[in-house]
C-alpha cells in the first residue's frame, strides 16, 4: 500500500456494469516525506475520500477485495484515509 493525496475526480457515465455507483478519484502517490512520486493514477474509492485528503491505496488484485471481489475490475483502490499530514511519522529523517 502507498500513501497518496487525492488531487481530483473523474466523471464517467458509461462504465463497466460492476462499477455503477462507485466513485473514481485521481490520486498522486507520495514518498515517505509526503513529496509527489511518480505519475497520478485513477483510484476507486472504498472509504468516502475527498479531494485534498491524504489516503492510502492498495494495488493489484487485492484492490477489488473491498467490493464484490470476483467481479470488480480495479487495480488501485483507496482503502483508508489518513487523519492528517501530522499523523505520518517517518523516523528515517
Amino acid at each position, binding site marked *: 500500500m502507498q500513501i497518496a*493525496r*487525492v*488531487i*481530483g*475526480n*473523474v*466523471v*464517467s*457515465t*458509461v*462504465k*463497466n*456494469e*460492476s*462499477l455503477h455507483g462507485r466513485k*473514481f478519484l*485521481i490520486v498522486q502517490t507520495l514518498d515517505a516525506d509526503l513529496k509527489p512520486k511518480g*505519475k*497520478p*493514477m*485513477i*483510484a*476507486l474509492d472504498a472509504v468516502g475520500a475527498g*479531494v*485534498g485528503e491524504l489516503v492510502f491505496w492498495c494495488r*493489484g*488484485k487485492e*484492490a*477489488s477485495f473491498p467490493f464484490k471481489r*470476483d*467481479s*470488480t*475490475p*480495479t*487495480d*488501485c483502490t483507496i482503502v483508508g484515509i489518513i487523519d492528517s499530514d501530522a499523523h505520518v511519522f517517518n523516523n528515517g529523517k
Partner: protein
Amino acid sequence: MIIARILGTVVSTQKDERLQGKKLLIVKPINLDGTDQSGYLVAVDTVGAGFHEKVIVVGGSSARLAEGNKDCPVDSAIIGVIDSFEVNSES
C-alpha cells in the same frame, strides 16, 4: 488505473477462443494535461468506447474481473468512458 485515449483498433482472426467476440483497441496513456505518454497498450473494450474518447484502463489480473472478461487471457481492459475529469493542483 490510468487515463488513456483510443488510438485505433486491432483486427485478429486467429486468437484464443476465450477472446472471440471481444473488441481489441489500441490505447495510448495520457497525462492529466492531455499530453501523450510514451508507449501504448492493446486493451479489451468492455463498454463500447469509440475513437478519440478518453477512457479508464485497468491493468493486471484485475482486468480479468471486468464483466464479460471472466477467465479470459487479458491483462488490460477498458472499463469506463470519461465524461470529464477535474484536477485541483493546489492539493
